[in-house]
């Protein structure tokens, strides 16, 4: 055990945060699926074992990845961005259609499915970070500095958009944030912002007039439902609020939650209210918020240790991605946001999504390794620049 701990590199705090998140995940999923409905179908244990295995595999992946130097990911992203685009196109055309959205691709032989958008998210962040780092001296020039960054973003987000609006919007926001951090001038940022806003308006106009894309109606209904408290479609959020209210400030204790009987997906999308019901808002609700914040702040603090700007931006982009995804999930649960279907990273039972989350954390860990460890790759591809992110 001690031997293993010694082999662990990277930040202990981030490791601990990840460990706690997965611990909460195992406990909550176990509790959530031990309902009569699942018992009756006799497969609740199967779900739990599958989820446990996924987490163990995720940690294995994380351990392996965090020992790999970032430069390899940066180089790989050049090829993988194409792979991601092709997979997205493939999923759009042939993908399994679960819940009328979120296209999945089946991996042959293992019997697992994954969302190409999970993969594309990580690849795009690395790729954009790399391009931003390369172009950092030309960022004041819109055509030569900013447009090369925008092209992959528009393509990838555009491919995700038809099947999964919220992921596309989230990914666009994260890359926008990365551009902001990389130092794209405000005049360009506002142009992009206006263009993005214009795009949304265009989607609404096209959707209202032609009914295309086909999922337009669903998006619209969700937003209307979020605003209209009485509507039937808001049933889920009502239940979530109920579960949160039942939780109270003082924990009720694990295994006591009654909302699992009626909360849709208490093990995935709606796991946050379920955790609050069992552990209370302090122990369950706020702890989770804090864990994600620690992950983010730790990454911001440590990423400057890495001399490469592309690495810093990747770490920030990935940690923002995890935190924003978590916040959106929580915001849905507390009815601050329309229903989206974003899982709680590391916590929701999400099959292969867990693996991609572990991959992202592994990359963050790799980037955030101590200065000493990164010293050796100091002279690698990008120019060293400690000024990008002063601590």
């Amino acid at each position, binding site marked *: 055990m001690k031997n293993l701990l010694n082999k662990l590199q990277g930040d202990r705090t981030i490791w601990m945060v990840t460990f706690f998140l997965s611990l909460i995940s195992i406990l909550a999923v176990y509790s959530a699926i031990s309902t009569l409905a699942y018992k009756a179908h006799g497969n609740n244990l199967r779900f739990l074992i599958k989820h446990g295995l996924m987490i163990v595999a995720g940690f294995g992946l994380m351990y392996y990845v965090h020992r790999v130097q970032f430069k390899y990911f940066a180089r790989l992203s050049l090829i993988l961005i194409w792979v991601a685009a092709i997979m997205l196109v493939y999923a759009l055309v042939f993908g399994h259609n679960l819940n009328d959205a979120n296209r999945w691709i089946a991996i042959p032989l293992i019997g697992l499915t994954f969302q190409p958008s999970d993969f594309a998210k990580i690849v795009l962040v690395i790729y954009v970070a790399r391009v931003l780092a390369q172009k950092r001296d030309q960022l004041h020039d819109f055509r030569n500095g900013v447009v090369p960054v925008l092209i992959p973003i528009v393509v990838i987000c555009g491919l995700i958009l038809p099947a999964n609006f919220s992921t596309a919007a989230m990914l666009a926001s994260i890359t926008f944030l990365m551009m902001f951090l990389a130092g794209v001038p405000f005049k360009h940022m506002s142009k992009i912002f206006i263009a993005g806003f214009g795009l949304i308006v265009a989607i609404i106009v096209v959707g209202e007039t032609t009914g295309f894309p086909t999922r337009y109606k669903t998006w619209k209904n969700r937003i209307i439902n979020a605003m209209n408290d009485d509507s039937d479609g808001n049933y889920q959020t009502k239940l979530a*609020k109920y579960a949160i*209210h039942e939780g109270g400030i003082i924990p009720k204790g694990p295994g006591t939650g*009654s909302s699992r009987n*009626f909360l*849709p997906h208490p093990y995935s999308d709606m796991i946050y209210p379920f955790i609050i019901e069992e552990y209370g808002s302090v122990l369950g609700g706020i702890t989770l918020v804090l864990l994600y914040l620690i992950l983010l702040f730790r990454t911001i603090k440590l990423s400057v240790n890495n001399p490469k700007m592309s690495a810093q931006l990747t770490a920030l982009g990935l940690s923002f991605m995890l935190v924003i995804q978590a916040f959106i999930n929580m915001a849905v649960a507390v009815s601050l946001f329309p229903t989206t279907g974003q899982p709680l990273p590391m916590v929701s039972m999400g099959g292969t999504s867990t693996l991609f989350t572990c991959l992202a954390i592994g990359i963050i860990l790799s980037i955030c390794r101590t200065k000493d460890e990164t010293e050796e790759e100091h002279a690698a591809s990008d120019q060293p620049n400690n000024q*990008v992110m002063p601590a």
Partner: protein
Amino acid sequence: MNLDGRRITIILIVCVIAIIFVIRLFFLQVVNSTWREQATALTEEEIPLYPPRGIIYDREGRMLVTNQTVYNLMVVPKKVQPFDTTSLCKLLRIQPSDITALFAKAKARGEYHRPQLLVEQITPADYAAISEQLYKFVGFYAESRTLRVYPQSVGALFLGDVGKISPSEYKANNYYTKLEYIGKSGIEKAYEEELRGVKGIKYAFRDNVGNIKDQEGDKEDKAAIPGIDLICTMDAELQKYGEKLMQNKRGCIVAIEPKTGEILAMVSAPTYDPNLLVGRVRGHNFNVLTNDPQKPLFNRATQAQYRPGSIFKLAQSLTALSVGAITPQTRIHCNRGIIGCHGSHSYDDLEMAIVHSCNPYFREVMHKVVEGNRDPKSRFRDARLGLEIWQEYIKRFGFGSDLHCDIPGVKTGNVPGVEFYDKWYGKEQWAFSTIYSLSIGEGEMLVTPLQMCNMACIIANRGWYVPPHTVKQIGIGGKPKDDFLVRYDLGIDTAHFTTVVNAMEKVLQPGGTAWRAAPKDIVVCGKTGTVQNAGGKEDHAVFICFAPKEDPKIAIAVYTENAGFGGTWSAPVATLLIEKYLNDSIAKSSESREKLILDANFLDR
């Protein structure tokens, strides 16, 4: 370019978002919110446990009203999964459009996730067949309910009925939900609180297909408390016989045990089988009965207000004796100039005037009561003072009041007084000569048959009554309501009753107006009446009586609408009932009378 500033901006934004979360979280947990009730209603359900309604027995312990289990087929539209519409419709004997209409209605009301009633009151036999197949139809399930059944098929209006709660009843009472049943009339309504019992609550969860799950919640279930059984005052055999005698007639019978005020029978004809208003046929039959021109749903015994006619002369006699206007020996000429009379008599005393029902006699009796020379200057003012005294006495008999009885919807009738005539004619614009028709029970006086029977009880008891009531024991071996343990004493000297009772005895003796109706071996005291009708229609035949003369066991009022003379058509009904009640059988000598009554048909008049 200040990159450090950008970093700090982002950190601040994230922190603000985190703080918003925490605030929102506490807001949801601490702040009072209506959505919580909405959410619990959808999920953790409070399933009401309906207690069985109390059973009603007659005074001899015969079961009159009991319960039968039926099933309501419910559906939660949101939970429904694609199903074979044709086979479901065939199973439930409904049209596919019934389902789509129900779903559309539920959607319009925003109740798509709530249980909706699809088919009501399925009998146990039908349900057995349905329950085998029901599992195939996700989202559909059955709920058991109890219905009232009437094994004796008698006393529909006496017992009353149970129906779905109306919006106004729902608003007036916070015990019920919108889908519940409530007593609508008769005993079912008057004793609703006793009969209904206390609902229990089962806290349960419904899973996503609408099935109830046995899941322990944090709230403890509350068992339902069954309704209280009642023993009513009715004698089912007497009631049944009364209904039979009133066949093909409009009218009513009220029979009361004088000592206790217990209503032995209360018939309103034409009558109907109470089982007609139960179950799925209720709606249809209710319409049929409502639209029937003979008005079977109208309880003539308590809601019809007739002019009292000649039987009112009994109350007039007692009033006049009591105020000292006359003595039993007072003789008055049968002066037919002002008011008509019938029969050969000319100068009767009180007893014979009652027997002959002498109209001029009673005109003069009331004249003496009302015009007492109390104000020598004005006969108008004199009449005002006199009428006030008269009205006070007449009200002692329970006229103009609901008699404090326990029957819902009783009418009070009308005892006109000073106020009434002042409004009608103007102050000091009327004297006795204006209102004399009151003296023979015509004019503006209105009474109900129940009140007339109560008057018979007062005379039978020689001066007091117990409010008429329909329930003898609340809970087997229990007591009636406290109101019915009280005697109302009229404050009229017992001696005054002797003359009246003796006269009533003579009514059923040879020469009396109802002598043909007299049964053998039973001394019945009665008084006939005929109530004139406007529009040339046949008179209503009226008869009140009690028997036996000493220690009376039963008092009866009979109204037969548009039948004619009271002694001919109503008196035999009363005396047959007395025979039935006192002797348990009809004597051979009375059979011809029974046949005459059974064969009579006045429905077309």
